């Protein structure tokens, strides 16, 4: 290469509390091109983006960026300030000043409206609070804010995760315009179709290192590089088709933000639920777990009608929920692995309120062994474990409750490939043991390989019920993205 890159990382490494996120990763992006970073969740893409943007410092290695170019970053976790107006968020740090030198708050919505219109956004009200607009709109505002600062280098970390097809089309039009204007764009996504559509160059990441850069590469080859093994080897064989009466049935159940939902989940079944983020999956899963419960409709567990208003009701009915965001909704990070495992079953382990510590210790070490949780001891704070092992602790907690219905909500998110494989094995084994498993994943590939049936949700409704013979990642994604008019 004769032209020096706009931004480059030279064998950077980074660890977080003993867990390696990046190991000697290298990468370079040129001006006027779109460079995609591709890899599994947990492959180190987000960490690299943060290091490129100067938000965190690498432990080793260095980042070289053209000092003349301003860097703009769109983070995966949205950074909008909830109780400030969209206009305040868009113009933060670049507010218009009145003749007194003060910030002209009254002029900001108008200015924000014009700025958004220049980017082709006319449906977002700049006077609304950021907390009051939808997730997709927040993501668009986040992107717009960064683009409006006219960066020479634009880093986008999973910018499409909450967007529907036409919003993705909008984003790609902006990216093409910026590319034509000479901006260097770095982009991460795990939707292959998007990458193929926009990327000029692709760098594949696995386990914190780059494993190759390509101008074009076909999907199968890319996935093999990403996962380090063929897909068939990553996923275990599906459990046999279930028979018998459903363990869990929903009839006309509706939660805030969903349509009326009907489904039947059988023992021994892994029933997949797919679709884009923000389309009612969360309301379905948390509704089944009583957090909060459904507003209307009927719910039957093992054929008997049940009222589930709180998580306690759900736990009593033999239902367990493993949420996606294990740090904020699942685990108590500073507490011991043992405490995290046994919290819901302490009633069983106690006499007169006092815990039988011996029995608890045995149960904790059994679970650690059974799920191959890698921890120095049961007394280790769970926050010191790697993401995959944390997820196993959470799974272990619910297996201890003797729940027979498992609601697994995107459980492999942010988990390394090896642990992912172990979790797949575990899920299939549990299904073979007769657990009824409702399985949501943001990764269509996962659904296609683990489930015999997948329900696809869009805008709060179940819009497709794909049987085994029609199952593929493409079928799931296309059902999720199809606009209402086409579906009708």
């Amino acid at each position, binding site marked *: 290469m004769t032209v020096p890159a706009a931004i480059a990382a030279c064998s950077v490494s980074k660890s977080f509390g003993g867990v390696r996120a990046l190991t000697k990763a290298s990468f370079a992006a040129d001006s006027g091109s779109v460079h995609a970073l591709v890899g599994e969740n947990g492959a180190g893409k987000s960490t690299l983006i943060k290091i490129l943007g100067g*938000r965190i410092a690498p432990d080793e290695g260095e980042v070289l960026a053209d000092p003349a170019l301003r860097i703009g970053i769109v983070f995966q976790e949205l950074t909008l300030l*909830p109780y*400030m107006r969209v206009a305040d968020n868009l113009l933060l740090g670049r507010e218009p000043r009145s003749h007194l030198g*003060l*910030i002209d708050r009254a002029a900001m919505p108008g200015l924000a409206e014009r700025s958004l219109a220049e980017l082709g956004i006319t449906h977002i009200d700049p006077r609304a609070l950021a907390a009051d607009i*939808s997730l997709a709109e927040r993501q668009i505002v986040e992107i717009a804010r960064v683009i409006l600062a006219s960066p020479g280098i634009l880093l986008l970390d999973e910018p499409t995760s909450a967007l*529907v097809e036409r*919003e993705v089309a909008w984003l790609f039009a902006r990216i093409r315009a910026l590319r034509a204007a000479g901006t260097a764009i770095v982009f991460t996504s795990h939707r292959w179709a998007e990458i193929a559509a926009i990327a000029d160059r692709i760098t594949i990441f696995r386990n914190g290192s780059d494993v190759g850069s390509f101008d074009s590469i076909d999907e199968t080859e890319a996935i093999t590089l990403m996962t380090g093994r063929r897909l068939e080897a990553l996923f275990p064989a599906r459990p046999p088709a279930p028979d018998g009466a459903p363990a869990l049935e929903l009839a006309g159940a509706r939660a805030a933000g969903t349509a009326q939902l009907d489904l039947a989940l059988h023992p021994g079944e892994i029933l997949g639920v797919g679709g884009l983020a923000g389309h009612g999956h969360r309301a379905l899963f948390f509704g089944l777990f009583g957090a909060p419960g459904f507003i209307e409709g009927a719910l039957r567990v093992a054929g008997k009608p049940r009222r589930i208003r709180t998580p306690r009701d759900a736990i009593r009915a033999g239902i367990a929920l493993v949420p996606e965001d294990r740090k904020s909704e699942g685990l108590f990070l500073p507490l011991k692995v043992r405490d995290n495992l046994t919290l819901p079953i302490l009633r069983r382990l106690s006499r007169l309120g006092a815990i039988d510590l011996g029995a608890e210790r045995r149960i904790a070490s059994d679970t650690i062994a059974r799920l191959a949780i890698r921890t120095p001891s049961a007394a280790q704070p769970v926050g010191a474990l790697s993401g995959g092992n944390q997820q196993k602790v959470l799974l272990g907690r619910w297996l201890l409750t003797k729940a027979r219905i498992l609601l697994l909500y995107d459980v492999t998110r942010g988990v390394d490939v090896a642990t992912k494989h172990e979790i797949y094995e575990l899920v299939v084994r549990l299904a073979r043991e007769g657990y009824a498993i409702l399985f949501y994943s943001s990764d269509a590939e996962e659904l296609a390989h683990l489930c015999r049936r997948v329900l696809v949700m869009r805008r709060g409704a179940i819009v497709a019920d794909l049987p085994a013979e029609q199952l593929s990642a493409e079928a799931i994604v296309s059902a999720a993205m199809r606009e209402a*008019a086409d579906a009708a």
Partner: protein
Amino acid sequence: MPPETSSLTLPRGSRLGHTIAQNIGLILAGSILLLAILGFVLIYALEQHRLPGNFELTSTVNSAMPLVFAAVGQSFVVLTKGIDLSVGGVVDLANAMAAVTMGKTLGSALLWSVVILFVGAACGLLNGLLVGLGRLQPIVVTLGTLSIFQGLAIRVLPQPGGAIPPSFTDLLVNPNAPYALIFIVLLGLGWAAFRRSRPGVDLYAIGNDEAASRTLGVNVLRTKIIAYMLDGLLAAAAGLFLAASATAGDATTGDSYTLTSIVAVVLGGVSLFGGRGSAIGAIAGALITTLIVDILFFGHVDPLFQSFYEGVFLLIAVVAGGVIGGAIRRRR
């Protein structure tokens, strides 16, 4: 024609709708203030058989002044998602210093006032540094500094006493006319300007989400230090008003301002979780708090029961505010 996706057809709220929903705390505080004023006038008229006049207005405004300043100071820190328990200590210290230093002339009183305001800001700087650099929670930092400032106040003025020049009292809390309202107006204008400055915007940003603000390039440490310094400065001003009202000093009368300033801020619609509310609300909250005392007084409520009614009123106001605010947000 296929329908557009949901996100593109959302109806826009009207400007007025947004303004109401986004300032609901302030509007509620204003309504409570209005009710309190009406209640005061009503009770006064029933008991005294005439409407309250210049004297009542003046004495109410004058007695509210220290709390107005202390509450505005507190609101800066609460907006950053902090809390300041040392307000009372700074009021004490300023009050004690004023009584000891001011002497007989207005000139020296004004000169020392400036010094005392600086001392207040320095107290705030200490708090800000401990919170910002020391990585300690605001509540525990200010618990420690409260004790330090109280000690300093007693060192300065071991026994109640000292003197405040009458000309200084006339300037700050003139007993003949409600001139002190001018200070409230100035405070409001000062706030409006601050709200429209870099630190003003950053104050709200870190109260909304400190981690995100840092990511967005907000200078968190600088903003916190500014907030605590302004808080200290205003608490010192509260001490000056207190000294001017009492025309003498006492190193312990300011203690109560720690808790009353928090009450005023809460009544003024400032969220204790940071990032929402404004100093204007805190001013309203301070006036409400003062008026409630007056209402209870003119209503011939046994003064021994006074804190009972204040406590009940605070709870009712907070619960009602939460219910009404929630209903308005949901309706949109």
